[in-house]
């Protein structure tokens, strides 16, 4: 399920003195099954951009296609699109409302008009994806769970619609390191098993480098860089100018290089770095 944007502009409060342009001439295409990370400084337009992917916002000018359907055309069934493109907002636990976990997670599938048995089955599957036990939690109030569990239940609420594309806006914000790790692992597992497209908005260069196949860097509502993590992180200077940085290991490799070691700086994970350093040190050990 591909997403395509063509010359998209978006302005908030158009026609008032407070008018601000949030997106300027954005064109991009996201292919079926890609894992894309969107990075950019605060206020660079990330949240505005992703809301165009499922028609929560429609461009002021320009066009958006999801799965070949033109969202900007009159009479497009946006609700159908939103079943296909799932969106997990920042702090998704703030949207919990159900009396029970089952009711809350089943909200999406029930809105899609699925029969009750199918809804229950989907809730069971969705909870399993985020590492929660259906039998144990289904009748509990979501408000009595711990912070990390609330976050998972809320994410399960989107997964239960079984969307072909999953958009996550900083899904790990405010979690402890273990919780972050687990949620990201679960997202990767879902992607592997179901072959869905994942679009992740993140402030963590490490996560972007480690998980994504493609990075889109936004700056003041424009696409500044777009490429594989290696390609993007080669542009260390540009990234710094945009208020972003490099993953710590990549930074380290740059340091080593400036100290005269002949290391390759296209390195994004600790494992790669270890291998590279050992290779360069070679016989000297």
């Amino acid at each position, binding site marked *: 399920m591909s997403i395509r944007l063509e010359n998209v502009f978006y302005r908030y409060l158009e026609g*008032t003195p407070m008018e601000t342009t949030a997106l300027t001439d954005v064109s991009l295409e996201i292919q079926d099954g890609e894992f894309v990370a969107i990075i950019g400084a605060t206020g660079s337009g990330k949240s505005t951009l992703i*809301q165009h992917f*499922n028609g*929560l916002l429609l461009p002021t000018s320009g066009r958006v296609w999801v799965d070949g359907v033109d969202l900007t055309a009159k009479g497009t069934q946006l*609700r159908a699109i*939103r*079943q296909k493109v*799932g*969106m997990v*907002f920042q702090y*998704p636990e*703030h*949207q*919990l*409302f159900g009396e029970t976990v089952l009711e809350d997670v089943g*909200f*999406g599938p029930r*809105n*899609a008009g699925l029969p009750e048995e199918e809804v229950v089955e989907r809730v069971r599957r969705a909870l399993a994806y985020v590492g929660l036990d259906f039998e144990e939690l289904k009748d509990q109030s979501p*408000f009595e769970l711990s912070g990390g569990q609330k976050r998972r239940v809320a994410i399960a*609420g*989107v997964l239960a*619609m079984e969307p072909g594309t999953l958009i996550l806006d900083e899904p790990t914000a405010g979690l402890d390191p273990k919780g972050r790790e687990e949620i990201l692992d679960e997202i990767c597992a879902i992607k592997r098993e179901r072959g869905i497209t994942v679009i992740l908005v993140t402030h963590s260069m490490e996560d972007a480098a480690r998980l994504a196949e493609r990075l889109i860097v936004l700056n003041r509502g424009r696409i500044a860089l777009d490429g594989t993590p290696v390609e993007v992180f080669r542009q260390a200077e540009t990234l710094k100018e945009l208020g972003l940085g490099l993953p710590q290991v990549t930074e380290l490799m740059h340091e080593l290089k400036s100290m005269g070691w002949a290391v390759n700086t296209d390195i994004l994970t600790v494992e790669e770095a270890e291998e590279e350093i050992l290779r360069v040190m070679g016989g000297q050990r």
Partner: protein
Amino acid sequence: MRFRDLTIGQHIPGDSVVHRLDPRTKIIGTALLITLLFTVDGFLGYLLAALAIAAVIHLSELPWRFVLRGLRPLLMILLLTVGLNIFLTEGEVVFRFLFLTVTREGIARGLMMGTRLVLLIVGTSLLTLTTSPIQLTDGIESLLGPFRRIGVPAHELAMMMTIALRFIPTLLDETEKIMKAQMARGADFQSGGLMQRAKNLVPLLVPLFVSAFRRADELAIAMEARGYRGGQGRTKFRELRFGRIDAVALSVAVAFTVVVGVFF
């Protein structure tokens, strides 16, 4: 959203004479205007009141278009009031149409009520347009001060108003965010019958209440952490000053109200 049209409660910063008046002067002036509009009976009185409001708008240097736009969201109420008065007042019949009867007295009353409403809305919105919420609550607190002795919690009331005003935009933002999140899960806030629509609001209202309580809790803790203990012995960064233009403005307002109120 429709909220944006509502000029009542909105503040347009500026540096005109009206903006610089002490908020207490403006509050008393508005109270006088309201009293006047309810005592005046006859078109000449309304005309004078309208001229006075026009003079204040002119002095405030606000764009006319903007001030008058505040009437738009209330147009329905306005039409309803005028309509009901025209059709339901008994008296000398001018003409009949089907079951509707229009009387001379009805037309007069309808127009009068309409004028009164328009002047009330425009006049009172001038207060909030030219006075920032903080000044406004400072003014109310100061005006309520004398009643503290009989147990009116003036400072607490003013603080509550400040907080309420401060959180209107925050809650609007929050509403929009939650609506979007639930729409992303296929929620529908636009269609269905009345009962269905009310039921559809549950996924919006529950999280909104939860977040309002959470914010209240956090704000209370933040205030206590900064040593807030109510109004006792609290000094102000911005002191209210009743200056010469206030004296002049207030005298003119009182004189105008008395003269117009008594003679028209």
